[in-house]
């Protein structure tokens, strides 16, 4: 593998963060975990992130706002964003905020891999 793809998981639940890190690292991705949604943009720039997996609700912060901020920031707008939500009905709001994909918790890991591969191919 020439260059490892870097994924940033933003979730206030450390267990989910750690789980996703383990699962994705098993597939060969480099994974960073953050519980601070408001530092996402800085983290993307500082770590040269390819894909952000963003929870919709992180410590009271609306994930869709973080998403649209990234998508509106020219320097990092090309970074892929995958959102996670616990509610079926939240899907359209995520897509409207500019997310490249979204998954409803609790998702199957195979589906997670599929989505990650698909988004990175876009």
């Amino acid at each position, binding site marked *: 593998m020439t260059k490892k793809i870097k994924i940033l998981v933003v979730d206030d639940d450390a267990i*989910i963060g750690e789980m996703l890190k383990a*699962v994705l690292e098993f597939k060969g991705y480099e994974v960073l975990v953050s519980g601070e949604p408001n530092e996402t943009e800085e983290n993307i720039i500082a770590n040269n992130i390819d894909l952000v997996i963003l929870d919709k609700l992180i410590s009271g912060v609306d994930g869709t706002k973080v998403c649209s901020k990234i998508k509106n920031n020219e320097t990092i707008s090309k970074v892929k964003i995958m959102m996670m939500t616990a*509610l079926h*009905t939240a899907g*359209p709001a995520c897509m409207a905020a500019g997310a490249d994909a979204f998954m409803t918790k609790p998702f199957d890991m195979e*589906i997670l891999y599929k989505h990650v591969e698909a988004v990175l191919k876009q």
Partner: protein
Amino acid sequence: MDQRIKNDSLKTLDFSEFSVQELQQELLAAKQEINNLKDNSENYKSLKKSIYSEIEQEIHVYKEMFYTSPNLMAILIGPDFIVKSANNSILELLGKDEGLIGKPYLEEVPELEEQGLGDLLREVYKTGIPFRADEMPVYLNINNQLVLSYYDFVYQAHRNMDGDICGVVIIVTDVTSRAKLNQDLKISNHRFQELVYSSPGLIAILTGKDFIVATANEAILKIWGKGSDVIGKPIFEVLPEIVEQGMKDKFEKVYASGKPLVAQEYPIMHEHNGKKVEGYFDFIYQPQRNIDGTIIGVAVIANEVTKTAELNRKIRESEVKFRQLADLIPDKIAIADENLQAFFYNKNWLDYSGLTLEYLLENGWSELVHPDDIETITKTLREALKCKSDIEMEHRVKDKNGDYKWHLARIAAIRDENGDFQSWVSATTQIHKIKEEEKRKEEFLKMVSHELKTPVTSIRGYTQLLLSMIKGNEAIKSSNIPLESSLRRIDNQINRLIRLISEMLDLSRIEDSQLILQKSEFNLNELVEHTVQDIKISNPNSYIKIEHKFETSIFADKERIEQVLVNFITNAIKYSPNSKNIDITIFQEAEGKVSVSIRDFGIGISNIHLKKIFTRFYRVDGKNEETYSGFGIGLFLVNEIIEKHIGSIKVNSKKGKGSEFIFTLDTI
């Protein structure tokens, strides 16, 4: 009037009768005088001349009178009644000319014989007794048509100088117009009597200051409970009970003032079947005047309206009750005409809005609606007006403090028994607390789903990670530790838990009628493909075959339709422990529809269960509880979702042979 005409005609008759006798007497006197003077002197000659000239003069006058008289006159001679003289009037009437003279009268006017007038003539000729008749009807043939007229008749014997009967003098007066008038009067009088007596209206005429009953029809006698013997008696003697009810004053007032008195639904105690009862009457007391305008009595014209009055009273009572009821109900009630212009608001509307009834009637309640809700409401109301169908809508209404509170308005179209539209009735209930409660519940649900799903997601992730890691690890496989089977069991249990959580959340939404569809246009065939791919990941041993017989897009809630597919497919897998084949077919059964069939070859469903599988918490018993787990709400949810989409579901199943579930939706 009648009397006067009669007098005139009598005079005419007298005059004619007198004139004939006078003429005869004059002639006799002159003859006598001539006979007495038996000389041939100049005196005699001149006297004779003057007498003849006088007689000639006299005869001329009478001739003149005879021929020009408006009376019909003729002199008939002999037993054959040969016309000797006939005046112009009679000739004109009979349509004859001078040619009639010298001819037999009855032969010339044959219709008289048929009517018995010939016999009368012969009788007079025989006996010398004059025949007189008033207003005798006679048909005359005029222009070949029998015309009826009425005549006053005199047939009188005509005598010669010796006093012997030599003919008949006819003197007739046409009194047709008078007779007709009399007849009309009689008919009109008869009609009046008929009208009064047969009228269902109550009619009595009271005359004089004592109000003597002059006329009282059957209807009024029945109400009085009296017979016709009351005619001629003073009314207050007949009905003493009405004096104390103030009727005497009323009659006297009408009598004195000459002004009619009108009353409606006036209660009067009267006798009925020997009992005193209260009745209600519409009546008019009309002063009666004679020709010079003096008041001579009072006419009573009345209608019994007891039933109507009672009905009206009941209606009024019912309306009072309705108002009390409407005011008592905690809802806001309004009634409006077909254009939704309200004409009634109950007390709650006034209390809540702090507005007066007049203001609300004038301006309606639309200005109290929250600006954000106006558009939806206007649209809903416009639709309701068009279809005249019942509607329900939720909106915020401003209270007297200016705060908007959530309300549910139910507006029903009220129709009469023929189904014709009558009015709109609206009941508006404050649901603010319920709305707030719903919001809190929704928040809670969101929180619960988030909180529950997070740990479950991580357990699932780690389990699957471990399964992936030990895959192909021969050391673990060959050891006796049941690591892989345990992890698989954990994974299965996690999946079961996940399904239970999402079913529970969906169920609570449905119970709140909150299963709101978020419709969009999407390709159904693609959705089926994606869903099956996802399912294959967690069910790698199943062989799912998809056949696209028909390709279409639909306008529906994509997530929910996916949920339906997942439910049907996972059920098919779950209930087919020995067969891994599942056939999915997308096809078109009818124009504008698309159907998806999910067929398995598993255990099937027996007939007794088939009808119930879509009810909530219904579960077909299975041997292995672990295999067939769930709350029994999966198909209930599916059914709700398809119903919300106005679609349909069909099941074909045979125990031991497998099941086929088909759902059908509208295409675009």
